């Protein structure tokens, strides 16, 4: 990781709030900053509701961010988008969603769903070229051409997710935001997809923001990891730093909760628990503590002293 490299994506103090009703606002993402470098995979992990999907959706501009800056390959995409930036964003950034069924048009054949992006943005000069690109990506994700003539509901959950991946990859985007894209797959296909994503990255230099809660898979695919909790990134570091030297108690509890496939051991094991309020941890009061060029923790000075003392 060289510090002179320019980030492909720069996120600074990003905030995404939702108004629930007249009195309440949900601060789904509350001032997070991170960089993703060209060709790397940044894993975003954290509990349900911590704001991972919201982060992804804000970056690809499915939402209008409440505050902060998003710079994508030199284009400022945080405010109102110019036509040109909008087109740049739509053709160079793609997202694979968490709920495969919710985003696949049930009346379209899988083949058409995959080709959609190419057609909307007129990226191919002929139907033959579209077909070729679609077939290529079908092979890559392990779906047959015959299957591509079926409708989404005729697929199993895992097969549908592969359709989602094919749809995102067909445009050959520079940044792919993969939101829990392998969570619904069985392990052997997860392995295929993770290997596939890595191969594509080696071939094409695709950059990934990989959102997941399955830390063991994140370990395989990510170069660096950000741990999110309640709208904040509480710790970030290289995969080794996070796994070998976790500092934040939330990171520790996440790591301890990974279930191991050893039945006798697993039935007895109890995960570490973490409750921010019981332990008196205050995210708003914390600031970034630097452990290494890549390893950073959100903490107050007191908290930091306590967590690094042992």
């Amino acid at each position, binding site marked *: 990781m060289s510090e002179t490299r320019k980030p492909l994506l720069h996120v600074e103090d990003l905030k995404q709030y939702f108004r629930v009703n007249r009195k309440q606002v949900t601060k789904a993402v509350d001032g997070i900053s991170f960089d993703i470098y060209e060709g790397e995979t940044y894993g975003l992990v954290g509990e349900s509701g911590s704001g991972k999907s919201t982060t992804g959706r804000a970056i690809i501009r499915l939402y209008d961010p409440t505050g902060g800056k998003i710079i994508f390959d030199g284009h400022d995409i945080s405010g109102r988008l110019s036509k040109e930036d909008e087109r740049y964003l739509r053709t160079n950034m793609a997202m694979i969603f968490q709920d495969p069924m919710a985003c696949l048009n049930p009346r379209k054949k899988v083949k058409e769903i995959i080709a959609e992006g190419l057609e909307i943005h007129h990226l191919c000069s002929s139907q033959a070229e579209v077909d070729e690109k679609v077939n290529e990506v079908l092979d890559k994700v392990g779906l047959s051409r*015959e299957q591509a003539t079926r409708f989404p509901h005729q697929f199993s959950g895992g097969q549908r997710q592969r359709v989602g991946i094919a749809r995102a990859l067909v445009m050959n985007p520079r940044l792919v935001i993969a939101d829990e894209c392998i*969570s619904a797959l069985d392990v052997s296909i997860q392995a295929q997809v993770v290997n596939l994503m890595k191969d594509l990255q080696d071939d094409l230099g695709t950059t990934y923001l990989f959102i997941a809660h399955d830390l063991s898979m994140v370990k395989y695919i990510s170069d660096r990891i950000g741990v999110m909790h309640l709208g904040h990134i509480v710790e970030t570091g290289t995969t080794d730093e996070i796994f070998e030297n976790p500092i934040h108690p939330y990171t520790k509890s996440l790591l301890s909760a990974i279930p191991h496939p050893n039945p006798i051991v697993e039935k007895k094991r109890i995960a570490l628990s973490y409750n921010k309020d019981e332990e008196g941890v205050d995210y708003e009061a914390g600031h970034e503590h630097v452990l290494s060029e890549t390893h950073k923790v959100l903490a107050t000075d007191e908290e930091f002293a306590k967590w690094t003392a042992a």
Partner: protein
Amino acid sequence: MAKFKRDKNERVLSIRDLNISFKTNYGTVRAIRGVRLDLFQGETIAIVGESGSGKSVTVKTMMGILDSNGTIDSGSIIYRCREKDGSEIEYDLTKMSQKDIRYKLCGKHIAMVFQDPMTSLDPTMTIGRQIMEPILEHETVSRAEAADRALKLLDEVGINEPSKTFKQYPHELSGGMRQRVVIAIALACDPDILICDEPTTALDVTIQAKILEKIKEIQLKKNISVIYITHDLGVVAKVADYVAVMYAGRIVEKGNINEVFYDPRHPYTWGLLSSMPDVDTDSDRLFAIPGSPPNLMEEVVGDAFAPRNPFALKIDYREEPPMYDVGGQHRVASWLCDPHAPKVEVPAELKVRIEKMKKEAGVQ
């Protein structure tokens, strides 16, 4: 470890020779091909297997929600339960209409948590109403009581602010919160059998652990039986007493959890266990079973896994293997278990992994 005793008298569900197919414009998909499986009272079984192997179809049949282009070609699913007056009744779910299953059994006897939480929640209804609905439908309680129970259920499944969530709509919740709501709905009417299809794939590990413990707690308290469908073998290790491994519409290996995890016999199970990420080792490539599953529209000749199986024998391409009894509760559908088959060892890397696990667990 106290092993779960499978006592014939306590069988709540027995599936025999189940065959299910789907008609499509392109031909018939033979999705389930001769499944046999038992579920005992208080037991937790896990069904694992390749995507598209028929796990969801099997359990959807029990819920009376098989897609309309699907038919049960043969077989039976016997469900035994007690009515309120204590008398025992048997139902063959394959002989009942889908509507009957849903009306008589779903919710109060058999409840299910779906793979895709968004499809099982009504986007136009508040969370509170969606939990109250089954309670009001199946029981004679006042609205206030139902609302009370709904709030309690939300709290039980680990929702932080039950009274806030009670008034919210599904799209306002994160994926994980939605899934917890779905679990609350499933538990609303105290079912005998709880089916969880990938119940925690949308959840992070800490909440997953909590939910699994919660389901376990409720299970022990009420002596219900649970069927988990999951691809997370860590979850399986944590919760299951018994495991069935499916491939291409068949069960290829089954047995109690320790038999299958410490002594796997089917090459597909080997592949499955090998492809699991191992947080303790450093390697930047995962093992992935080569190839893809068979097209179930074509007739499967021989063993469905043979083309992907480096250990395949000649007979595998001609004839489907029978289910071999390899001792204990352990059954395996592979010609490799035939006494005449050449001896094939577990792949070396997996063997090392298993030895390590056994040592950690203190078993021989």
